[in-house]
């Protein structure tokens, strides 16, 4: 697979992970379904993971795969 194609695919996948995982994190913090502490901890974990995926999707440029 070409480096550009690979970097585009990884970027798109990580961006979709960001949107889904972050969305679930926001739903958890707003619905508060597992009690305050557990919901907050889950939301922080999910949102943190979403932001990490976002950062790496931006970083996954073709230079990484050459």
């Amino acid at each position, binding site marked *: 697979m070409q480096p550009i194609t690979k970097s585009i695919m990884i970027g798109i996948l990580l961006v979709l992970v960001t949107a889904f995982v972050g969305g679930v994190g926001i739903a958890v913090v707003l619905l508060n379904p597992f009690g305050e502490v557990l919901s907050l901890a889950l939301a922080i974990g999910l949102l943190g993971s979403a932001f*990490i995926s976002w950062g790496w999707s931006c970083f996954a440029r073709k230079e990484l795969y050459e």
Partner: protein
Amino acid sequence: MLFIVGASLIALIIILPTLGYNSQPIALLVILASLLAIFADIYILYKDVAKKPITHKKFRLIPCHRGFVFFGKEFILCFRCLGFYIGNLLWGILTAMDQYIWNDFLMSFGLTYYLILLFGVIATVPIHGAWLRSHPSKAKKQNILRSIIGFIFSASLWLIGGLIIYLIRGL
């Protein structure tokens, strides 16, 4: 950071069923999202993306483009990431003021238009990113369009959150 988030998510998805939450739809969704996040983190750590070391001098929580100069100071985020984080901050403040705002938004627009808007918002960054990667000469230029793209995409997290809340309450 990756280890902390991954380990805490693993611990929490083990805790959820033991507390008796595994029958709720939101719990299943959380377990699915956590597993997806953990797989993404493992992929980042061990497979391809982290293959080359980050050799920037400044500490950064998450990697991004090389810093850009703004008012004489070097910042560590590109314009698109800046738009994304500012957007999330603004949507967060908006939601803190009225936590039913996304549900009200969905009700006033209708599910069909909401989904069209959601897919449009999610598609912005993949299209823009693919275009930038296909045109390397333009990728180095930072402009306000990138911030706007990042800002628009930041709404996707909140729109998906609103959609999940709507579906969970409907069940």
